[in-house]
């Protein structure tokens, strides 16, 4: 373990992506010790996959950009579901974050004058995105990896790479005192003491089977926290990118610029037509986006494109009846394509083997990002004292939808806020009696028993097939288009999978460095989190940001301008709602068909409008809005709808039990043969 620093403070950071490394760096710099846990060497974390860039209103292009504009874009893009104070704080910190990375040596692209260059991204009219080639996430992660290595060499950071967090160690008062982790090589488990724990474990994309996420993005550790009492917020908000490249192993992003340069989306008009695309004549092709949206054609906004492609495939109109449609560039001369889209066409070629200059690409929407995550207050503290969260695994900042290039900045911001908050907690926490080893031994024993049970358990279920089933149900019913009956069926399916989980057998008799046992542990945790996502979606009867229900097509601020909170009970998630802090910008209709100024004007007429002042001037909070307490005990409004919703869930569970645990009986589909 790392040598304990001044005041004897040691903080455990779980996850070595941007958020985790940002926090680790800040803690070590403050002279305290860090135990850093990561299932992969931290340099191989999922943050490397981010390509586009990092947002910060530096206004190098003289466009009048400001942090206030960035803040407004972020809140508007998130359909007003985000608590506004932390989003504002992030946007204000963003330029300094970019400058810091610049000082740490990130090879950001430059202007002729040698200054940082910025590009435009979705959801804004300003050049606000700093970028390093087409691999900004990789470059930012490496910069933090290097700084943390420097602290590692200085003895302040102890890395546990190849260790996976299994659970938290909580004392009798539900205060977090450390964690239990497993060495993925030896399967040895160990309890680690910590004065505070920061979760920075990224998103849960693997719950949907295949996604654009890396293979470590199971959400497993976060789910473990949730099952130990941490609140999970806005789980139902899952961003789906319209164009990804379906692979046998994962979905890879295909940039929107392919459509920007004239790419056409189509499927054969005849269901199940398996002819090669070139031999399908023009009149037998269905350019469904161009047909349905003559004004915008293939360049409809991202969410609409996603929904339409998804619906076509759900209706079995995808190529060969599969989940794929053509994104066709073959009508554009190859030399034009090379000049404008060279790099992204190479990605397609590398992973698919087809040349998109001559063969239409096959694409499908892909689960990309979770706006939801562990509930945190404005200092990244969860409801469990001593447990904090930062990055994609927390729910703050993005509301109902994340803007492009806001993820990298939110990760670093989260880490930078969590670090001092964790130190503050560690300085003040009462340690009386909590150091007793009994606490740690007890949790360690529990986790060892869990492993032993799985190892000994036998049955005819295959854990990988269970994972596939979960992924298929979640992708079909809990992503782009959501219907309440389908959501109910999905929850029943998840309950069935949870039942069947007891009959999986670990198919590896060699436990040394096995993948089977860790996967089984992930699977359990994923199933629990899948229910949170599904029931959150079921209960939210409106459409907002990434959450779309055709039966409730409008945003309903009166009933649902609220954060969904899920709490674990033995029966599953209990859903309640918490008010959103909209004290700085009054919610207005989100409408990208018009310029933002028009919709802003409309909203400005309303009473108490607090549109941000321009040019980064200090913002004055309006008098008539209640401020959220910083206190961890949480605001009083938290419980207001709890009982009501609990009954809804309870009802569902009862119904199913009465029907004898058979999904077919309950009217659901089953993949059982």
């Amino acid at each position: 373990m790392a040598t304990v620093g001044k005041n004897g403070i040691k903080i455990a950071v779980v996850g070595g992506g941007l958020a985790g490394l940002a926090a680790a760096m800040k803690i070590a710099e403050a002279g305290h010790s860090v135990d850093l846990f990561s299932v992969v060497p931290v340099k191989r974390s999922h943050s490397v996959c981010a390509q586009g860039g990092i947002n910060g209103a530096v206004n190098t292009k003289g466009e009048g950009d400001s942090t206030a504009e960035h803040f407004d874009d972020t809140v508007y893009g998130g359909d007003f579901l985000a608590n506004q104070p932390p989003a504002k704080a992030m946007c204000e910190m963003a330029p300094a974050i970019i400058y810091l990375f610049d000082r740490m040596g990130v090879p950001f692209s430059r202007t002729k004058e040698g200054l940082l260059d910025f590009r435009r991204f979705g959801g804004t009219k300003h050049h606000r995105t700093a970028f390093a080639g087409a691999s900004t996430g990789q470059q930012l992660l490496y910069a933090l990896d290097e700084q943390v290595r420097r602290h590692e060499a200085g003895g302040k950071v102890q890395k546990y790479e190849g260790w996976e967090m299994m659970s938290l160690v909580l004392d009798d008062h539900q205060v977090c005192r450390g964690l239990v982790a497993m060495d993925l090589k030896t399967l040895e488990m160990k309890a680690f003491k910590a004065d505070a724990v920061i979760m920075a474990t990224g998103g849960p994309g693997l719950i949907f089977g295949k996604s654009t996420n890396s293979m470590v993005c199971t959400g497993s550790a976060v789910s473990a926290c949730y099952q130990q009492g941490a609140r999970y917020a806005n789980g139902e908000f899952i961003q789906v990118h319209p164009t990804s490249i379906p692979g046998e192993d994962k979905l890879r992003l295909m940039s929107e610029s392919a459509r920007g340069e004239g790419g056409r989306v189509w499927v054969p008009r005849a269901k199940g037509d398996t002819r090669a695309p070139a031999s399908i004549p023009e009149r037998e092709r269905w350019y469904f986006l161009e047909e349905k949206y003559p004004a915008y054609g293939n360049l409809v906004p991202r969410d609409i494109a996603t929904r339409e492609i998804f619906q076509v495939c759900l209706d079995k109109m995808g190529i060969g009846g599969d989940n794929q449609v053509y994104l066709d560039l073959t009508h554009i001369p190859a030399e034009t394509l090379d000049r404008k889209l060279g790099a992204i066409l190479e990605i397609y070629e590398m992973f698919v083997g087809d040349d998109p200059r001559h063969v239409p690409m096959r694409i499908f929407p892909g689960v990309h990002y979770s706006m939801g995550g562990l509930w945190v207050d404005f200092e990244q503290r969860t409801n469990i004292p001593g447990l904090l969260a930062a990055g994609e695994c927390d729910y703050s900042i993005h509301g109902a939808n994340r803007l492009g290039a806001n993820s990298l900045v939110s990760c670093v911001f989260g880490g930078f806020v969590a670090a001092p908050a964790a130190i503050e907690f560690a300085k003040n926490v009462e340690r009386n009696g909590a150091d007793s080893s009994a606490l740690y031994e007890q949790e360690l024993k529990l986790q060892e028993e869990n492993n032993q049970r799985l190892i000994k358990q036998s049955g005819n279920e295959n854990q990988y097939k269970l994972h596939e089933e979960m992924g298929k149900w979640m992708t079909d019913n809990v992503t782009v288009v959501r219907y309440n009956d389908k959501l109910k069926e999905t929850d029943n399916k998840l309950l069935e999978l949870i039942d069947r989980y007891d009959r999986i057998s670990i198919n590896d008799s060699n436990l040394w460095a096995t993948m089977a046992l860790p996967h089984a542990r992930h699977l359990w945790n994923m199933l629990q989190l899948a229910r949170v996502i599904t029931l959150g979606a079921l209960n939210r009867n409106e459409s907002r940001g990434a959450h779309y229900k055709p039966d409730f097509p409008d945003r309903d601020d009166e009933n649902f301008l609220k954060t969904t909170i899920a709490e674990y009970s033995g029966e599953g998630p209990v859903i309640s709602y918490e008010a959103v802090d909209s004290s700085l910008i009054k919610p207005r209709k989100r409408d990208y068909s018009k310029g933002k100024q028009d919709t802003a004007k409309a909203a400005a007429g309303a009473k108490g409008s607090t549109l941000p002042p321009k040019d980064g001037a200090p913002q004055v909070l309006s008098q008539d809005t209640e401020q959220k307490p910083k206190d961890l005990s949480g605001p009083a409004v938290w419980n207001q709808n709890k009982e009501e919703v609990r009954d809804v869930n309870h009802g569902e569970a009862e119904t199913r039990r009465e029907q004898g645990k058979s999904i077919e009986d309950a009217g659901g589909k089953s993949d059982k043969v």
Partner: protein
Amino acid sequence: MSAQPHTHATPNRTQAATVEIRIRRRENTDAAQYWETFEIPYRPNLNIISCLMEIQKNPVTKDGKQTTPPVWNMNCLEQVCGICTMVINGRVRQSCSALVDQLDQPITLEPMSKFPNVRDLIVDRSQMFDHLKRVHAWIEIDGTHDQGPGPRMDQEDVAERYAYSRCMTCGCCLEACPQYDGDNYIGPQAIAQVRLFNMHPTGKMTRDERLEGIMGDDGITNCGNAQNCVRVCPMSIPLTKAIYEENRETIIHGLFGWLKR
């Protein structure tokens, strides 16, 4: 639509209905290696990772023998994290970007040979990260508080640094290097990182520390100029250029460095 000829993923080769894969296995660090052959149904667009996933679901050899599932490392599957590196048909590369349609069968999978073999296709590359510590592969910033932007830089210099900065520590260069064998030579990746940081205006201020990191008995002079590293690098990093430049720097430092003391 132009009159393009009918093109398909595998225009040149008739595909077998199955894919045959031979895996060099090992139960644990101390056990002996052995081979096992697997056969899975062919589908278009399979990569090596998908094949391994298929085998993992139902680990039965081609002869019908139930066995333990082979293990391997994987993460991003976009050839940017470096973790899934292995030797495929004799060539070191990432398994996520190795497509079955472009490989001769039977396909052989082996763990990298220059690193401790944990089990099956998993190796321990922590020595590479230790090398990064030795060459001080970071910029010595004064602190993370806001100090405004970093130094101005020419886009041309940035472009050269970007090329070195793409190194994902995958180990292909070390696997292919005839000189590299554990602890006798620090190898191309660390040398290229010295180049990356010594090119930076702030990094230059501590350049000597990095040069000294590659000047010991296992230092840069062990390069035998085989140039394999640059051929296998998946990120096309100009490794031989870095070695050339830094070799010159170390010679100058060796000759005149004492004057600075």
